[in-house]
């Protein structure tokens, strides 16, 4: 089990009671979230230096967020999953299967699109619930179960439509990324930010949030202190599924089409964002704020490198090294954090 290293507000009321204001600020600066934030500032600066003519364009940066908002939304729910000491590798496959089911509902069975938009998150939640029940009822490790459903969900999507591309969604539904709130913020970004605030409230202010940290820190201890771990797990996987379902609807609208291979491999990008945002892969620690910052960090540096015409393989190498660098740094900071506290 990982040592407990509560960060400001991450571990809830337990951490913030006795420490002095000065220690509070020092720990804040030494937290993964602060590092991620610094990296984001560095990323924006670096992007500006790499291609000043094209990168530092506010509208472009806003517009380009639509490229990764589906993954970003899945990362919010993944933060819950990982904090609780689990992992969900099936999120992107869930997105693909839900998108295929939604597409078939509308195009083949004539279900009105308005209804399908609501059905999407529900279908995703049911698929997530399936994960949760297997994990909680049969006491199976989430890694094993979701490796299985990763293949199962994408396989089902392929069985259903082969390599056909479903098309013919109504015009009003297509192009979610072309809709702006207040003429400035793309709708997918707004949806993400609203969900981020909601998730932060749940995680840092609700009983469910406290249960998640408790389970991730020490599941049997949490069980003994009355946390119904099974119920919490089912809930958290259902939430993850629901968010994938929402991502499915958003991606279908953005692309105007559905293929079984949608979001292929995106579970790794999702987990990268969560871990880069300072969530401990073994559970018990993490914040929604960190995930949000890391999501923008990854999105921003990928655009900076794209505009600077960096080859895709170099881009992958950069994101990979960034993750390793950050995780090592977070470990060191956690140690320093412990010394500051004592």
């Amino acid at each position, binding site marked *: 089990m990982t040592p407990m290293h509560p960060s400001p*507000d991450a571990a809830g009321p337990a951490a913030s009671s006795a420490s002095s204001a000065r220690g509070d600020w020092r720990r804040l600066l030494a937290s993964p979230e602060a590092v991620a934030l610094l990296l984001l500032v560095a990323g924006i600066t670096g992007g500006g230096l790499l291609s*000043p*003519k*094209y990168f530092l*364009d506010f509208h472009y940066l806003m517009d380009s967020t639509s490229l990764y908002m589906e993954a970003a939304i899945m990362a919010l729910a993944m933060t819950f999953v990982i904090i609780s000491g689990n992992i969900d590798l099936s999120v992107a496959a869930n997105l693909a299967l839900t998108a295929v089911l939604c597409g078939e509902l509308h195009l083949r069975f004539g279900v009105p699109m308005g209804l399908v938009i609501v059905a999407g998150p529900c279908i995703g939640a049911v698929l997530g619930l399936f994960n949760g029940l297997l994990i909680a009822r049969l006491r199976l490790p989430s890694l094993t179960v979701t490796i299985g459903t990763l293949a199962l969900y994408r396989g089902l999507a392929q069985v259903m439509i082969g390599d056909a*591309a479903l098309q013919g969604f109504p015009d009003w539904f297509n192009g979610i990324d072309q809709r702006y709130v207040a003429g400035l913020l793309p709708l997918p970004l707004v949806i993400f930010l609203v969900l981020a605030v909601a998730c932060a409230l749940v995680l840092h202010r609700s009983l469910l949030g406290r249960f998640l940290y408790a389970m991730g820190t020490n599941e049997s201890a949490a069980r003994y202190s009355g946390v119904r771990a099974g119920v919490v797990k089912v809930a958290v996987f259902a939430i993850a599924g629901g968010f994938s379902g929402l991502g499915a609807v958003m991606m279908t609208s953005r*692309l105007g089409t559905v293929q079984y291979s949608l979001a292929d*491999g995106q579970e790794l990008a999702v987990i990268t964002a969560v871990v880069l945002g300072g969530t401990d892969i073994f559970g018990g620690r993490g914040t929604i704020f960190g995930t949000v910052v890391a999501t923008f960090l990854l999105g921003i540096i990928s655009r900076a490198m794209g505009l600077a015409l960096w080859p*895709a393989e170099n881009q992958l190498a950069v994101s990979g090294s960034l993750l390793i660098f950050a995780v090592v740094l977070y470990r060191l900071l956690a140690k320093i954090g412990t010394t500051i506290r004592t």
Partner: protein
Amino acid sequence: MAKWLVALIVMLSGVALVGGCQKQSAAPATQAASSAGSGKIQIVFIPKNMGNSYFDLIGTGFKQAASEYQADFTTVAPASDSDPAGQIAFIKDQIQRGVQVIAVIPNSTTALIPVLKQAMDKGITVITLDADLTGNEQYRSAGVWPADADEIGASQVEALGSLMNYSGKFAILSATTEAPNQNAWIKAMKLALQGSKYQNMQLVDIVYGDDKAEKCQTESEALLNKYPDLKGILSPTTVGIVGAARVVQDAGKSGQIVVTGLGLPSLMRGFVKDGVVKKFQFWNGFNQGYLAGQVACQLANKSLHPAAGVTFKAGILGDRTFRDKNVVIADKPADFTADNIDKYNF
């Protein structure tokens, strides 16, 4: 929590400030797209993925044509072609950079439509090559095809026939059931088979290996088991032909069962040297890239207005004529045998 919110707001307003200040200087970049003709033509080539030797060959031809017009030529692509939406970010970046021409080997006939529409709205010329936006051709100005489907079908059947003495049972190993070009070629093959020359050849089965190495091998093995008197496997896909050749080689039936189709010399060399595959076909990717480069530059300097029947000069390739849906054909399938395979490295 409150501290983090404050930090987030400060940061976002910082981004807004920086962005706001820079907005004016970014404006000329977007204008560049509409003012083609002044200065150098900027062309970007976006294949399905990087690290593919055939796409590299296309790029070499493309670059040569671009250099004849002193155009700026760049290649960018995703690392993998598994995500149908993977090319979108790369296209968005190029729209932002204000290039004049985006030449794409589309990874999906549909997923790129919204972003290609944005590019065209900004005055950027979009062309496709090697693969097309089948059914959505209005979202590109021209499509450069490697070879004509009827010609591919006929010459593949002839290649197979010549190897199996124009008689016996054979099967086709295709990619996926929905692949538009595969289906067009198979249709053309069936048409060619009606010729009297091929009356003793019998197409017994069509199987699909999904262009996955493992599935191609399983499907080939199944064919061998199901038809003990099978004389040939025709696989018009570069992954399929390798799978079929490997299975026939491993079964020790390289004299009995003919394997041919469309293959890449680099992947087929071993099988040709071992005598498993006597002859296969492909076209020259260089010519396709070169033709795409000619079309791209001539579209960018507005000297070419594509429409069915319009003929234009395509540099070293001579005259080319647009077909329906602004399709132009680059090359013919050519034979590769033990005699000439070493001359090619794609």
